[in-house]
């Protein structure tokens, strides 16, 4: 991390980093019932580094299965990393240490991608939200007031408090998870596709609310989304992932306006094409397990791309790219 600051130059005063993730890898074993063959592993996250400044929103983009939710789950102690370091609020997190995990969970809130499986079907909405207050040790007497405050903020009708999850529509369920995550203010809130099942008007309401709450409560967000419009609108900086690897990161404006990695370029181009006509260019989308992860799809492959996956190169202020095309830049790490 000091290396990054050194490259950035002494001129800029670094903001307080609430979260620093270095070289994070999470590998899952799959299959593996046979004793003869070594079980293959899925590198859901492979050597990923990023940081989040206090009061900032970091957007995490990348296609399905690229490891975004896995990162989120590591950060709330649901998965143990295979390797890598995580510092949160200045504290080095040891994943075999219960105190550290509790520390993470107390200060990091999360809204999951799938609203259905994350809500207990046997509890009424009021009690689902209340559970978060109990877990945070909030005084019982304050429960009703806190619940009454959060419900309109997330666009939920007060009458829904007495419903069970199955009685709510998909959008309503997603708003319950938001209420549960926001009812106890956290330092960092992870939003995993928080609005993907919401219609645009509720999405607009939730996005406005999230932006307002962030400055009011001094929150930081890790915002995971597939929707580039939402990503642009919400994040100060973005990280783009492809099959477990970080391929590009930087300030949102430079990444969207001057995408450097061929994959990011394609994402942005598809976004533009979709808003204009309807036709999209389709290419094979398989990762390569030798050399650059993007090699099999990349239109610019060069000979060195077959050797090793490229390191991160600097292409602008805080903007770095894992692609040999950007080699002229300074090595980021």
């Amino acid at each position, binding site marked *: 991390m000091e290396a990054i600051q050194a490259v950035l130059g002494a001129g800029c005063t670094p903001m307080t980093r609430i979260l620093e993730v270095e070289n994070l890898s999470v590998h899952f074993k*799959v*299959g593996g019932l046979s004793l003869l063959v070594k079980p293959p592993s899925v590198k859901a996250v492979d050597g990923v580094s990023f940081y989040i400044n206090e009061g900032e*929103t970091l957007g995490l*983009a*990348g*296609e*399905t*299965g690229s490891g975004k*939710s896995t990162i989120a789950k590591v950060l709330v102690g649901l998965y143990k990393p295979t390797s890598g370091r995580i510092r949160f609020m200045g504290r080095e997190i040891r994943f075999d240490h219960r105190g550290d995990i509790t520390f993470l969970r107390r200060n990091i809130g999360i809204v999951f*991608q*799938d609203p*259905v*499986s994350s809500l207990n079907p046997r509890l009424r909405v009021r009690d689902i939200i209340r559970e978060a207050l109990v877990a945070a040790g909030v005084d019982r007497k304050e429960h009703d007031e806190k619940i009454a405050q959060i419900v309109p903020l997330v*666009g939920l*009708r007060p*009458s829904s408090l007495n419903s069970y999850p199955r009685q709510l*529509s*998909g*959008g*309503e369920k997603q708003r319950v998870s938001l209420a549960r995550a926001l009812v106890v203010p956290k330092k960092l809130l992870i939003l995993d*596709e928080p609005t*993907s*099942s*919401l*219609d*645009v*008007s*509720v*999405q*607009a*309401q939730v*996005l*406005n609310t999230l*932006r307002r709450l962030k400055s009011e409560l001094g929150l930081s967000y890790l915002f995971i989304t*597939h*929707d*580039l*419009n*939402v990503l*642009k*609108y*919400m*994040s*100060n900086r973005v990280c783009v992932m492809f*099959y477990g690897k970080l391929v590009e990161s930087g300030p*949102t*404006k430079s990444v969207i306006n001057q995408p450097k990695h061929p994959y990011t370029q*394609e*994402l942005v181009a*598809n*976004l533009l*094409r*979709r*808003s204009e006509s*309807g036709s*999209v260019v*389709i290419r094979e*989308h*398989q*990762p390569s397990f030798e050399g650059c992860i993007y090699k099999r799809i990349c239109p610019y492959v060069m000979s060195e791309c077959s050797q090793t996956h490229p390191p991160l190169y600097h292409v602008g202020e805080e903007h770095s790219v894992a692609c040999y095309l950007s080699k002229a830049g300074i090595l980021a790490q």
Partner: protein
Amino acid sequence: MQRLTKIKFKILTLNVDSVDDKPYKSVSRHFRCMSSTPTILEERATSSLLQVRNLTIDYVSIDGSVRVLEDVSISVDTSEVVGIVGESGSGKTTLGLSILGLLDRPPAKVRRGEIIFDGETDLLRLDDHKFEKLRGGHLSIVLQESVEALNPVYKVGFQLLEALEAASKREKKSFNRESAKREVLRLLEELCVSQPSMVLDKYPHELSGGMRKRVAIAMAILQKPKLLVLDEPTTGLDAYVQSRLLTLLRQLNREYGVAMLIVTHDLPLAATICDRIYVMYAGRILEEGEAKAVLNSPKHPYTKALVSAIPQGFVDAPPLDVPPGEPPDLKRLPKGCKFAPRCPKKTSLCEAFEPLLLGSHTGRVRCWLYSDDKNT
């Protein structure tokens, strides 16, 4: 997929009757002009593939009954792609499920209406056994919560092959496991699943959310339906996979004439793939029209609000335009126009009487602002 005759000609649809309120007696509502026509299609083309007429559904519970669909009429023509767009809780899923006979009755109760599929069957009065057959065959659905489509105790590959085997049986074609497996793998690849053979060997819970969604979509496609209902098909999929999926769906539609009913809250998405769109609010259809027109020149104040709520710009952009007020509470709907409490253009007329869905074949709107366009 060979079962479905390729459709290479254009179908023109003209609505003559425009008043939604009366149940129309026959199929005279739609005229079709077409060039050279294969015989099977000629027969089928004399009627819409799907007609939902005046569908009115309540959810009944001990707390009372709630009307979720009020007099909803929609139609899907052979090989047409139709979108249902609306706010959460507007009843889209209920509509989709009712077509597939998947509504739990009770608590759902059909008060009125009929669903005509393929010119004959009233789906609302079909028994479970017959529906089961129809669902595995001519009608197929991708549920909003894709988890539900997959059985957690069987591996993905087993379930996909089973779907394909059932489809072959129905078509009385021989089933070859090896070639079936190749077909499944090819389809998954088209849906951007990397290492599809590895996916076949996994249990549903081992897949990421977006992957599960794609497996569910593959499952529905393998059943080779005439009408495919997709409930929020793109939620949780990234922009790239979304466009890939849309291309695949369009291909399925163009080459095999599969008609689709796409239920989504994403208006721009619906506009890119659908021919026609219905906009729903509080269980009613508020606007109907040609897809691009609805997105680019929305008429109804609610549709306008939907369009202006789409995020635009970067983090320093101003807050988004949000329609004021809360989503409608179906238990306490206003007397007149259901959008009136949130409408910037409302008048006393709006609060007293609910407007009808009126207009011509180019589009219909349920709003007093457009009432003198045609027959008042």
